């Protein structure tokens, strides 16, 4: 059994740690580094509760070895809020009742945030496709879609007017 010294940047903070070969990224984040916002759900890359950002892309951290993430920038739910204020996606989930039990919520928000990075003005089909890899057993998804739309509007409104006009009102 080999062990590996790795470096992870989590929400901008660099951590050095030693992991077994078989340590999954989600366990390194939760058990070694204390980022317990990322949940473990199905353990089979189906439910998306463990979704984090790996160098900017949404990935399922239960299906990735920690050693594979050596040197990567990881984003978790703990990194969404800035200066004590909710990020637009968090505000959307609160305002639109995008959660009930909340177990899927961190992964759902990270998947949605990845979408809004790529596509600031998604339609409903695009939102549903983006969260296809995240299961919610409470909400029936409609309020989650509404929450993502809320965040997209919020982010569109805070973009500068010049930019909004220049890129055609936020359309791709």
């Amino acid at each position, binding site marked *: *059994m*080999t062990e*590996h010294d790795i470096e992870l940047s989590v929400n901008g903070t660099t951590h050095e740690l030693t992991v*077994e*070969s*078989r*340590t*999954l990224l989600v*366990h390194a984040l939760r058990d070694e580094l204390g980022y317990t916002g990322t949940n473990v759900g199905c*353990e*089979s*890359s*189906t439910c*998306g509760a463990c*979704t984090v950002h*790996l160098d900017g*892309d*949404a*990935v*399922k951290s*239960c*299906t*990735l*070895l920690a*050693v*594979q993430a050596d040197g990567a920038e990881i984003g978790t739910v703990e990194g969404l809020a800035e200066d004590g204020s909710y990020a637009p996606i968090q505000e959307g989930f609160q305002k639109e009742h995008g959660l009930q039990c909340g177990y899927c919520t961190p992964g759902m928000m990270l*998947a949605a945030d*990845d*979408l809004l990075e790529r596509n600031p003005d998604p339609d409903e089909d695009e939102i549903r*496709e*983006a969260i*296809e*890899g*995240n299961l919610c057993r409470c909400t029936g998804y409609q309020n989650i879609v509404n929450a993502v739309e809320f965040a997209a509007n919020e982010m569109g409104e805070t973009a500068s007017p010049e930019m909004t006009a220049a890129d055609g009102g936020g359309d791709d």
Partner: protein
Amino acid sequence: MYPDEFDYYNADGVDDALDLLDEHSEAGTTELLAGGHSLLPAMKTGLSSPDVLIDISDIETMQGISADGDGLSIGAMTRYSDLVDSEEVAEHAPALAAAAGQVGDVQVRNRGTIGGNLAHADPAADLPGAALASDATLVVHGPDGEREIPADEFFFGMYTTDVGPDELLTRIEIPSADGAHGAYAKKPSPSSGYAMVGVAALLDTDDDGITAARIGANGVMDHGVRLSPVEDALTDGSLDGDTIEAAANRAGDDLDVDMMMSDLQASNEFRAQLLEVYTERALTAAIEDGSSSVAAD
């Protein structure tokens, strides 16, 4: 849920990966790790317990898509999301672009690779049919150097290909289908999202109708297959619904229904019916919209 213990090595080149394969061939079972979205779940449930894992996903010469006038060269470790985002793949390999867009979900497509998909050869994976329809050539490196395997000769059976235990699939070459119509129509499993049936179609057309057709299917047999009777029925046919329906009705002509995949979600007889329906949908989608993809249920 931890996998059993294993040793992990990160290969920094093709030769390094081959050396590691050779070095550990006596030590027990060795697996190559690409995107890991088939292998790691299997290791977590104990279905697979390799002693050594060789990570090939960072090998630089196995990344990316390059296009010249004749076609595409795609590194085996290119991720699905890069195939989906690529204008070159959309232009030169529309059936592959459509199929890659229907693999798993966003997170899976951000990790899984074209080479991992084809070399793993899951019968229900989405890319074997598209590789066959796209007339892909799979380039394999081994101790004796490089060899090229046509997609038609690559798949042997369930999880079995022509890639030897001391070899490595490094890239996929695809002749340009610029101007052809391509599509992939899939009946996904409601639980896993894998293809119960998936049909990839690539059609060359001119003003008179269809000049050439390549149709590949996955999810039906224990490995991806060409649907030659459909191809024959389409070639020199017109672009109307009757031709397409008649061709699609021949989808199972060369296949033994008794040998088709059968599981809790679909019996072999039901798959045979789905195959005709999804062949027709793939052909219709290809004609209606150059590179559209259909995921109907």
